[in-house]
């Protein structure tokens, strides 16, 4: 423990990040530039999220990390161990017990409460990036609320596929002002963005922090005749039988047999512990070995 300052980052850096967080909370959806630090992990592995977690974490916090909803994937395990070692905080896999939850590409199924903080890892914070390559121009577009281009993208989706085919990183408008990239969460999770917990978004490589205060009004962009739809695979979970959760599709044998199961492992495990069963009562082998 004495080898590191608490939670790895030095106190000056944490103050700098906290200032960016406060600014982000004051202007919901606005991308605040910050001096992103080198972290002991490659860009793209959650350097933005880790810096946010380090800046908000106290010794009393209980920390949870999920990657695509799962607590036991490489990225989640290594970030959890990182803070166990550098901050000595308690960790958990239970969504309800955690006070700080760092996530990659999912929002937990269980509703979060006001005393929780949800930290997102963001690869590309700029929702207009693939339409307008110039950062100077996109910042101007945000400043002037010049968002016609965002709908051109959705128009192109419908004209090519008959429906809005954007399935993740689905753009939202925050409090009727900023258009925001909610990070690559499935659009199934978009309605949950208006929630009780504080949500912080960190992009380490792109050096941007943005935030949603509790109960912020977040609207997914759409057309009147092609309204937004929070879609998921049309199956119940094979393990716990839940029909209201976002599902992973797994191919379980060489014949291509498919299996659908909750992507949120804590949600699925909690349900199974309560006695809910799906069509395939035993988890597949990959899970048994972990």
């Amino acid at each position, binding site marked *: 423990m004495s080898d590191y300052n608490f939670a790895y980052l030095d106190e000056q850096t944490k103050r700098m990040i906290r200032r960016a967080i406060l600014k982000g909370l004051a202007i919901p959806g606005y991308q605040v530039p910050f001096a992103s630090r080198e972290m002991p992990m490659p860009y793209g592995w959650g350097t933005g999220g880790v810096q946010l977690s380090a800046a908000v974490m106290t010794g009393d916090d209980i920390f949870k990390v999920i990657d695509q909803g799962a607590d036991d994937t490489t990225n989640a395990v290594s970030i959890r161990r990182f803070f166990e070692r550098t901050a000595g905080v308690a960790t958990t896999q239970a969504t309800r017990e955690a006070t700080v939850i760092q996530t990659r590409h999912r929002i937990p199924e269980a509703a979060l409460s006001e005393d929780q903080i949800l930290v997102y890892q963001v690869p590309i914070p700029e929702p207009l990036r693939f339409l307008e390559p110039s950062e100077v121009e996109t910042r101007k577009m945000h400043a*002037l*609320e*010049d*968002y*016609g*281009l965002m*709908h*051109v993208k959705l*128009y*192109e989706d*419908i*004209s*090519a596929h008959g429906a809005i085919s954007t399935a993740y990183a689905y753009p939202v408008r925050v409090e009727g002002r900023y258009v925001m990239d909610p990070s690559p969460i499935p659009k199934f999770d978009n309605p949950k963005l208006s929630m009780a917990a504080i949500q912080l978004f960190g992009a380490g490589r792109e050096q941007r922090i943005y935030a949603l205060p509790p109960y912020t009004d977040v609207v997914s962009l*759409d*057309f*009147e*005749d*092609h309204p937004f739809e929070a879609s998921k695979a049309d199956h119940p979970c094979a393990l716990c039988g839940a029909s209201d959760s976002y599902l992973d599709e797994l191919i379980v044998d060489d014949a291509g047999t498919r299996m659908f199961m909750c992507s949120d492992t804590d949600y699925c495990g909690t349900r199974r512990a309560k006695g809910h069963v799906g069509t395939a009562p035993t988890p597949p082998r990959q899970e048994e070995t972990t």
Partner: protein
Amino acid sequence: MTPDEVRPLLKVEGLSKSYGGRVGCAAVSFDLYPGEVMGIVGESGSGKSTLLNCLAGHLPPDAGAVMFDTRADGMRDTVTMSEPERRMLGRTDWAFVHQHARDGLRMNVSAGGNVGERLMAVGARHYGDIRGQAIDWLGRVEIAADRIDDRPHQFSGGMQQRLQIARNLVTGPRLVFMDEPTGGLDVSVQARLLDLMRGLVREMGLSAVIVTHDLAVVRLLAHRLMVMKDGYVVETGLTDQVLDDPQHAYTQLLVSSVLQV
């Protein structure tokens, strides 16, 4: 037509722009009335494009005023107007047709998306309506409706230019800026494009400022003509008058330089 009866749509007063010590355009003043087409001719480097970009708000002029008769508040100086207001004008009452279609189009967006962008930028949120208007406008510029989902790079040069015109006119602007709209097209395509533009200008009652070095284009389209040389306006007048009886030495040179076929 006197100024008492009809207000000018665009009133330019003493517009100047220099690049360091070099003059872009200097002390340009003119009035443009509703439904009128003004041609600006001159050789390369005479300040035509600088002037047009200053008028359209793409370049900030050093001095002068560009007064536009806005729908809401009457005459407003667009130079001192705030950037959001100017951008709003740029996608509602104004249109800008670039010489190279690829400057004015989004090449990786379908033709329908290109035409629909301005509609969506001013708040259209009904896919069916946007598509309907896009098809209507493609028809007006003689592009087949089944090309609506093709990208502009699959179009010929003339079609790209017509698509650019459709994209600009879809919101029913009152003033169109055109920078060499027929440049780089072969003559038969030029002729059809000119024919189309003449029809649209008359049908929609558009006012236009057309910059070109092609005297045949202004002869066909423009009511009035301004001749520029080294950043200054050297001669103005009715198009036929200027072309048939040029007064300034440079205009005489320009008119006599046209190849007679």
